[in-house]
């Protein structure tokens, strides 16, 4: 037990996890905005927009996140000189957030589309019957209900995003959990299992409440039909 407590004093477990939470927070905002726009494009009557949305989802969904994050650091920053500002560390952080947002936007888009499927057909028909065009109908009738129906898949995407934020280590964000754990394992080869369990427990403690919260929210906000 003493060794377990010493891990927390010796290594900044909470600080590393806090970096992951920050990555998750900013990437979640970006992914939600981009994902909603993509979902709108995919359900819109305009074929070229739908095609853009579909291609984006099919390409990004099938690309490993590692490559996307690596692309930001090595290709955009290293080879093309893209700088998102804020100094050395902050630049890598922002590039990682961008990569995470781009990747998860594809899944947010698909979640919202699955939410659209939970909206009864009559709602769409009623919206048309009172003369609403596509955009007003989507904004006032379909999307608000779709978000309520999409809470479980959106929650799953959020959980995936929390866990995937560790991949930022590829993008030279060296202060986040997986990189910090790697350093800790290198430094204390005698207690590798307790160190792993300490960091893993951190994620369990973050992820399980999010799961419970989404289940509770989805029941509370479910549209009764």
């Amino acid at each position: 037990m003493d060794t377990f407590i010493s891990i927390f004093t010796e290594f900044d477990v909470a600080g590393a996890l806090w970096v992951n939470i920050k990555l998750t927070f900013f990437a979640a905002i970006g992914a939600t905005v981009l994902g909603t726009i993509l979902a709108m494009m995919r359900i819109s009557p305009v074929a070229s927009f739908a095609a853009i949305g579909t291609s984006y989802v099919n390409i990004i969904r099938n690309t490993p996140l590692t490559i996307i994050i690596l692309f930001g650091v090595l290709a955009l920053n290293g080879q093309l000189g893209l700088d998102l500002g804020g100094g050395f560390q902050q630049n890598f952080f922002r590039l990682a957030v961008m990569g995470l947002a781009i990747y998860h936007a594809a899944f947010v888009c698909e979640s919202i589309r699955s939410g659209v499927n939970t909206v009864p057909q009559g709602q769409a028909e009623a919206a048309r019957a009172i003369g609403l065009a596509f955009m007003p109908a989507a904004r006032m009738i379909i999307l608000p209900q779709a978000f309520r129906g999409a809470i479980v898949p959106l929650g799953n995407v959020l959980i995936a995003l929390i866990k995937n934020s560790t991949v930022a280590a590829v993008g030279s964000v060296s202060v986040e959990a997986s990189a910090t754990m790697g350093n800790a394992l290198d430094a204390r080869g005698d207690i590798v299992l307790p160190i792993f369990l300490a960091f893993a427990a951190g994620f369990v403690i973050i992820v399980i409440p999010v799961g419970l919260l989404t289940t509770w929210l989805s029941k509370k906000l479910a549209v009764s039909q």
Partner: protein
Amino acid sequence: MSASVLFDTPGPKARRNIILINILGAVVIVAVLWWTISGLAAKGQMAPGKWDDFLEANTWVDYLLPGLANTLKAAALAIVGSVVFGLIFGIGRLSKNKLINVFCSIIVEFFRSVPVLLMIVFFNIFFSRNLQISSDSAMWAVVAALVFYNGSVVAELIRSGVRNLPKGQREAGTAIGLTTGQCLRAVEIPQALVAMLPALISQFVVILKDSALGYIISFNELLFYGRTYSSPNGNVLQALIVVAAVFIIINFALSKLATIVSRRLSSRGETKTKPGARALVGAPAGLDDVEPGGGAGGRNQNR
């Protein structure tokens, strides 16, 4: 097939507007492509020297194909392992024995909430230093991490697959004198496996994608080879695009296979699919369950 219920069949004015917006959209696509390519060209990234490496046989034979072989090997081992792991713990979670049930639940929930990368980093050091495995320790670290994570997901698939079977299956099994365990093995699991096949294939895509995480611990898979090959030549950007394309092609084929299998199953009509309610849009792909009968975005096309 009728048009989407989300909007009216467009009249003459709406059709004109849609054509205009379509042209606008096409112009935007072309503009973005042109901007990207000319931007790359301005930085000398479109120079043939940066790309023609990937048209030479040596690049593929010496670097990319061995990398791809390692990626596929790790993925294949992980797929087999996670199905075995999933079967054991999925059945464990269905067990009537409280102790086995709770134990399996804790294991499954734990590995589902721990990031795969954390496990990969841990196993890499654990295998190479504590267990002294000298050869391929990086690959086995990737395989182990993928088995624990994806095996837990498969366990949940099996559990929900069995739960969703009609109650009569179990009752019939009990009626002909099978014990609970026999009934599970002989009647329920085989049907659950068939019903979960599309979701299982989608999980293979996840395994293949996550195998690229091995790059971090220098497992010599496709991405790692692509990077090491291109670093001295100064064309990392081009290498990443080529490697990504290989992943996309394989994963896209797997996703299509999942859709085809699920359509086959739903037309067979004996596996349980959600009845009734017509969907507003085509079934979304890439979520935990690929819903049967859903071509990606098939029903919401403008006519």
